[in-house]
């Protein structure tokens, strides 16, 4: 077998990753074959290719999906000293003796964005406040069914239990300034324009807007404030983008090498600087001005498996309260 190639299935949708891969090839001489799609599609493909799958490394951008793929036996456990050393245990799959099945390489926080002129920061600094009647007609979000939100609500469910969560979600629905639609950037712009006042967004979209050279984007960011929610209690919700080695990977060696490369300072720098994500390796995010400006925050600690297992339940709750 030609160990000079590596087959990569990626759900990362960031053009900056090109540089990341090119660097890896330059460093190791291993060529990367790549297919990127959405998480669901990649898993479906992997599942059906079965033992014949050419995939070596799988990159996904949602912890729940990583967990589910692991449950379905699509990954193989990895023993790698480098990975174990660099990546915090809470960002790894459970180790049942043979090593973890997946590793998080970057994180993004689900932050609250608010309009500085119409909303006081204190009124929007917890997720729960999104459901508070005081924010009636102010909230906008992307679809509740989007993995970013499913993941967040899954965590809420874990904290509050089903009944309370349902009330919370209902409250959010009642507070909506408009029905859920568009992406996170859309919500930020809507907050700035005054169409609504409070929104949820992934941190990297916020950071990207902050660093934009376009005057409109800067004008948008002038108008909005960003807050890491729940700093007083559980911390802000954090999701993981991570990778794993496919169960039937033909180039297992190269695959591990690649994952180790992703944990390297250089690659972590790409995540942090190129895509405004939080690197998992200490200090790598340091020179991203936007992330620096956002400052440090308290992240929630919650087992990924729990969030993953919750997503179907969350969807049912959403359906019930009419959260689109």
């Amino acid at each position: 077998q030609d160990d000079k190639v590596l087959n990569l299935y990626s759900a990362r949708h960031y053009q900056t990753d090109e540089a990341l891969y090119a660097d890896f090839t330059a460093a190791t001489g291993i060529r990367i074959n790549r297919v990127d799609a959405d998480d669901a599609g990649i898993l479906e493909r992997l599942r059906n290719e079965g033992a014949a799958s050419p995939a070596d490394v799988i990159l996904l951008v949602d912890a729940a999906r990583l967990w589910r793929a692991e449950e379905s036996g699509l990954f193989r456990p990895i023993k790698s000293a480098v990975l174990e050393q660099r990546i915090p245990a809470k960002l790894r799959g459970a180790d049942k003796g043979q090593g973890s099945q997946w590793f998080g390489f970057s994180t993004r926080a689900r932050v609250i964005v608010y309009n500085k002129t119409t909303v006081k920061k204190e009124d929007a600094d917890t997720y729960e406040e999104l459901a508070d009647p005081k924010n009636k007609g102010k909230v906008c979000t992307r679809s509740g069914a989007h993995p970013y939100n499913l993941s967040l609500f899954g965590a809420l469910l874990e904290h509050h239990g089903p009944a309370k969560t349902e009330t919370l979600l209902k409250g959010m629905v009642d507070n909506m300034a408009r029905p859920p639609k568009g992406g996170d950037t859309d919500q930020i712009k809507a907050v700035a324009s005054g169409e609504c006042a409070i929104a949820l967004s992934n941190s990297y979209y916020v950071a990207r807007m902050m660093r934009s050279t376009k005057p409109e984007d800067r004008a948008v960011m002038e108008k909005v404030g960003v807050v890491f929610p729940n700093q007083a209690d559980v911390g802000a919700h954090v999701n993981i983008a991570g990778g794993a080695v496919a169960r039937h990977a033909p180039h297992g060696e190269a695959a591990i090498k690649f994952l180790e490369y992703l944990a390297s300072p250089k690659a972590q720098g790409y995540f942090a600087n190129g895509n405004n994500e939080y690197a998992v390796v200490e200090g790598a995010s340091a020179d991203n001005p936007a992330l620096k400006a956002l400052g440090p925050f308290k992240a929630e600690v919650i087992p990924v498996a729990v969030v993953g297992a919750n997503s179907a339940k969350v969807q049912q709750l959403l359906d019930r309260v009419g959260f689109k």
Partner: protein
Amino acid sequence: MTLLLCLICVLLVLPVLALASAWWSADGQSWATLAHMVQTVMPEYALTSMGIAVGVGLGVAVVGSATAATVTLFEFRGRRLAEVLLLLPLAMPAYVLAYAWTDTLQFGGPVQTALRGLTGAQGALWPDIRNAWGAIVLFIACLYPYVHLLVRGALAERGVPLMEAARLLGAGPARRILAVALPLARPAIAAGTALALMETLADYGVGAYFGLSTFTTGIYRAWLSMGDRHAAAQLATVLLLVVALLVWAEQSAQRRLRFAITRLGAVESHEARPVPLRGGRALLAWTVCLLPVLVGFVLPVLALLRLLAQGGDGGDSGEVGLPWDRFLGWCGNSLLLAGLTAVLAAALALGLGFLRRRQPGPLLQGLVRAVSLGYAVPGAVVVVGILLPAGMVQSLWPQTQAAAWLTSTLAGLVYAYLVRFSAVALHSVEAGYARLPQSLDESARMLGARHAALWRRVHWPLMRRTAGTAALLVFVDVMKELPATLVLRPFNADTLAIIANQFARDERLAEAALPSLAIVAVGLLPVMLLVRSTRPTR
């Protein structure tokens, strides 16, 4: 030959069957999921879908027929230009249209901002277009060409003797068009509308972006959020059943009637010549033609160009913009896939059309109907339908590597496209065949022309243009296709649609603008080519 075609059909129906099989293999969990959805959201989803379908169906039928009638039955300054313009929206993917219009018209978009600045007004000047009504308008604007193209073909061969007869029975131009020309084009209108409807029902991109609660949204939720493939497949088959019923109803209504014109009228007759329009009426004709083109092409392209001119949001962070060097490769992949699929689909449709004409029977009819259903399945669900049987085959006979083969070659992708888009070619060709009188076949057969000769010497010369139209429609559909390409393409085989989607998913509309425009531009190539060959010579 018959066997081969039937085999191909079975192969193409396989994914649909795989989805249907979910009803047998359904477990308690999927029933629970279904029950939950039916109790909570499904009624609303179904209602929304129905509303949108009705709106789009009526809209495309009216806009498509009206524009087709305008350019074929009338002559006015710049008619040729109008003919070309009317096809442009074909190249426009619905999701791109949705992005472009939303960006332009939304609260914080350039138009409202400018207007607010101008008038000093506050708040939203108009409601957000991201609702069911907006979706209906957008779908009409990008799907009417299906109807337009097919109807244009039908009207070009309109029965001159019949139009003359109608004249002599006192029918003025309006009644002649409404009571004779268009009813004769009914198979074409029905086929085009069916295609537009299936496309609408299968859509996810626009629906998701607009936050619409459609049936397809439901399917996706069941699959993605609840992780329940079975329930998703079950819902998908419900959708198929509805579509199948609709198509069947129209077909059986048509069966009683004929739409073929046995004798051709004199070329020089008035009826064969388009009626010249001048002054106000010519203006009206232009309005009819321009409105859909403006909404479906010109304005969104301008919007995209504006985004492009503003440059990416990349900023100083050193994020890369578009890698120009690879752009050609993406174009190439798109063209290759689209071209290959278009030719294959058209050939398949012609083959099946021919067979059905030779041996009309319920078996073939059912098979063709079933193949057509692929178009009504949301793209990602088709992928599941394709991978499922392949995966099964592979797990039973691992050495075949069926699923891996499917994903590691372009052939697999082309197969997926055929599963999904054969309907487009089938419907077009069927509408074309409806215009060919049976008596021609009969006389050819009496003169000893059977099978191949009948095909080559009678059907092909008379169906050539229809085949071109069919190929064109498939071509642009493949150019725009996303979900199946996303999942099933081999390594490193990105297409323009993939790239556009990558940017769009990353919420970078400005960067998405360029590949989107490229899709449009590349899609226009064959459109232009076919404008010429599908232009009626008579």
